[in-house]
């Protein structure tokens, strides 16, 4: 443990940017807003690079106690930060991808009236995400956890005058509350049984406990509750429903928060708590099952979506499922590896989708796109690279991480592997379907109105009604991310990435046992790799046949499948099911029992009735004050008589 006084500066920088833009942005010029937002986000990235440059495995982990916070007897919580190999990876991903998306947002959001607000929120999100990543104890992590939820809510509902955006923001916030409830209870359990929330102290306490192989106990309970929290934040079954709706937010938000960083917080949290999960195999199995099912389930929904961002949203849910599957089989470093490559290629996919939406004038329906490769060559090329990466075609980034996960899953159980490979096939299919529908064939949309206005960044080809390529401020990040999507996977070559993270997960995956794998195992590994590559190729081929060679065929297949296709297209009616099961009973119960019954019938009635009673009593008492002198005298006499009678009676007794 080495103190490092620079740690706290990283999150504070974006907070300063958010504050300046939030308080003074309304009066500032857009140029100044851009400068501040990019400067503070970029300096956070520079700071992260500086920390990475000074990082050495020998002196890791680093920590820094910024200030005391809670002092309650033996229970202490500080504002303290922590940097080990795991947080370093997250730190670089968050600041790096975050900075790129900030740059992109300048182009994408320039003409929006709330530009300063948007930039301020983005910086605020960076602050909370970095707090989450750099926390040294669960409570500071929880601040970041809730904070990114807030930023997510603000940004999903950024266009709050649109009903659907406001509702989507609320949905995200409420569904996340369910997960946070589990997380909180896990924290309470830790406080009660370990007396601390500090990572080092909690894990030291956990280490002294036996592995809960038979039956379930404290660690299993904590693990499952943490998983509830992770399922909320990282959109796993059954709490994934908010993420597709979150696409109501501006596209850079979808890229940054709902693909690259925030939604991976759950994976990071599970990996961070690997000590607990290692000793709770039941909880770990649940993580694996939830992840595997989510991966398959979300991928199948992705097939039938027509909104370009919805496809990517379900793809994100599915890929997050992969990460949880990796964590669930104990391959935490594989999960984090996929987290990193996913941040590159999914961030890129969303940004490219944003560029497409920008180029065709706000249209998101893929059926009204097509042929865009001619109009937007750069977007087409970068998005193509990202698609190859996510589909798992070597040597792109996604191949390395996905193959790592599948190999680890195959070691745990062939069921995970089969589902994983099936998902890989579906992933490849729907991603290439997206590519062919968007960029292939002829342009099917209406002419782009010149009125959608990006005149500030006006291009030569502007205004003649054709889709147009985005400005360079948007294409730049695409190119950088495309480069990362190509080479990002090579850090996993020869298990470098795993070795790098090994000090964090040394009690987790059996790195040593893996290395000693025999040549027979090597053959199996290459065999499985071959299978996953060929299913990716098959998915591509199928998409090519259906959406490029015979574009009429999908509609006929859909008609032939009938109900099944309808179910998939309607997301298996899960939203409707939740509505009937949870939302409606809650609303009805609140209306009849809590509102009409308790609030109006009990509390309001008590207040109103006592007021009415007081008025009636005073109405009656008013008649005493008649203004008639003799009646006053009568009252005095009567009162005196009562007093005398009382005294006489007391005297007699």
């Amino acid at each position, binding site marked *: 443990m080495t103190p490092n006084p620079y740690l706290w500066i990283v999150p504070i920088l974006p907070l300063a940017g958010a504050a300046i833009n939030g308080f003074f942005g309304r009066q500032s010029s857009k140029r100044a807003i851009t400068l501040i937002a990019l400067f503070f986000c970029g300096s956070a990235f520079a700071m992260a690079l500086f920390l990475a440059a000074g990082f050495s495995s020998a002196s890791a982990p680093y920590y820094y106690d910024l200030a005391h916070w809670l002092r309650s007897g033996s229970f202490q919580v500080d504002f303290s930060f922590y940097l080990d190999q795991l947080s370093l990876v997250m730190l670089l991903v968050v600041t790096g991808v975050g900075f790129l998306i900030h740059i992109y947002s300048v182009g994408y959001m320039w003409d929006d009236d709330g530009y300063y607000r948007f930039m301020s929120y983005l910086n605020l999100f960076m602050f909370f995400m970095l707090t989450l990543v750099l926390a040294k104890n669960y409570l500071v992590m929880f601040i970041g956890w809730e904070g990114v939820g807030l930023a997510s809510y603000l940004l999903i509902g950024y266009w709050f005058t649109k009903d659907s955006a406001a509702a989507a923001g609320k949905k995200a916030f409420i569904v996340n509350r369910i997960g946070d409830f589990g997380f909180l209870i896990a924290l309470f359990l830790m406080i009660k049984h370990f007396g601390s929330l500090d990572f080092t102290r909690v894990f030291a306490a956990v280490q002294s406990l036996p592995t809960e192989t038979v039956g379930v106990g404290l660690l299993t309970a904590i693990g499952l509750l943490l998983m509830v929290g992770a399922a909320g934040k990282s959109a796993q079954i059954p709490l994934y429903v908010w993420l597709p709706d979150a696409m109501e937010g501006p596209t850079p938000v979808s890229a940054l928060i709902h693909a690259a960083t925030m939604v991976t917080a759950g994976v990071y949290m599970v990996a961070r708590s690997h000590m607990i999960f290692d000793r709770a195999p039941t909880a770990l199995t649940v993580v694996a099952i939830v992840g595997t099912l989510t991966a398959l389930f979300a991928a199948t929904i992705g097939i039938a979506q027509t909104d370009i961002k919805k496809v990517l949203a379900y793809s994100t849910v599915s890929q997050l499922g992969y990460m949880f599957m990796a964590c669930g089989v104990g391959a935490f470093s594989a999960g984090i590896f996929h987290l990193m490559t996913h941040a590159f290629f999914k961030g890129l996919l969303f940004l490219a989708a944003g560029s497409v939406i920008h180029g065709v004038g706000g249209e998101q329906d893929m059926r009204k796109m097509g042929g865009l490769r001619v109009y937007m060559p750069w977007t087409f090329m970068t998005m193509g690279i990202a698609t190859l990466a996510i589909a798992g075609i070597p040597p792109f980034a996604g191949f390395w991480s996905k193959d790592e996960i599948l190999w680890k899953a195959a070691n745990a159980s062939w069921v995970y592997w089969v589902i994983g490979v099936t998902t890989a096939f579906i992933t490849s299919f729907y991603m290439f379907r997206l590519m062919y529908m968007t960029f292939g064939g002829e342009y099917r949309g209406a002419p782009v109105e010149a009125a959608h206005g990006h005149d500030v960044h006006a291009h030569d080809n502007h205004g003649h009604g054709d889709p147009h390529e985005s400005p360079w401020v948007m294409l730049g990040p695409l190119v950088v991310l495309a480069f990362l999507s190509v080479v990002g996977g090579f850090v996993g070559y020869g298990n470098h990435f795993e070795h790098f993270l090994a000090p964090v997960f040394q009690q987790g995956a059996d790195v040593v046992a893996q290395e000693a794998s025999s040549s027979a195992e090597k053959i199996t590994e290459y065999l499985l790799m071959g299978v996953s590559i060929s299913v990716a190729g098959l998915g591509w081929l199928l998409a090519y046949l259906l959406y490029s060679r015979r574009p009429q065929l999908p509609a006929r297949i859909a008609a032939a499948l009938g109900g099944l296709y309808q179910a998939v297209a309607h997301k298996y009616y899960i939203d409707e099911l939740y509505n009937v099961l949870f939302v409606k009973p809650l609303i009805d119960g609140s209306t009849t029992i809590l509102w009409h019954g308790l609030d109006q019938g009990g509390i309001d009635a008590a207040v109103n009735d006592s007021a009415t009673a007081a008025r009636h009593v005073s109405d009656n008492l008013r008649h005493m004050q008649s*203004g008639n002198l003799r009646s006053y005298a009568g009252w005095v006499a009567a009162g005196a008589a009562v007093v005398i009678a009382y005294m006489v009676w007391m005297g007699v007794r």
Partner: protein
Amino acid sequence: MVPLSCYLMLSGILFVCGVLGFLIKRNIITIFMSIEVMLNGVNLSFVAFAAHWHSLSGQVFVFFVMVVAAAEAAVGLAIIIAVYRTRETLNVDQVNLLKL
């Protein structure tokens, strides 16, 4: 010797007469006289007790009451004259300017 109870009964009867007169009569002067009757009823009980217990304090009290009653009569009659001059009536039910 007349027993104490007779004095007290007379005192009570006087007091009740005063109260009833106060309550029933409308003329201010009659009401004023009723008050005097009440005061003197009380005075009678004071002196009766004083004689009974051979204590001077009761008689001293009576002097106090008489002095206060005299002062009160002086002020009260002045007020009554002032009221009659302005209102031209002595009926208390018509002297109700303060009533809303």
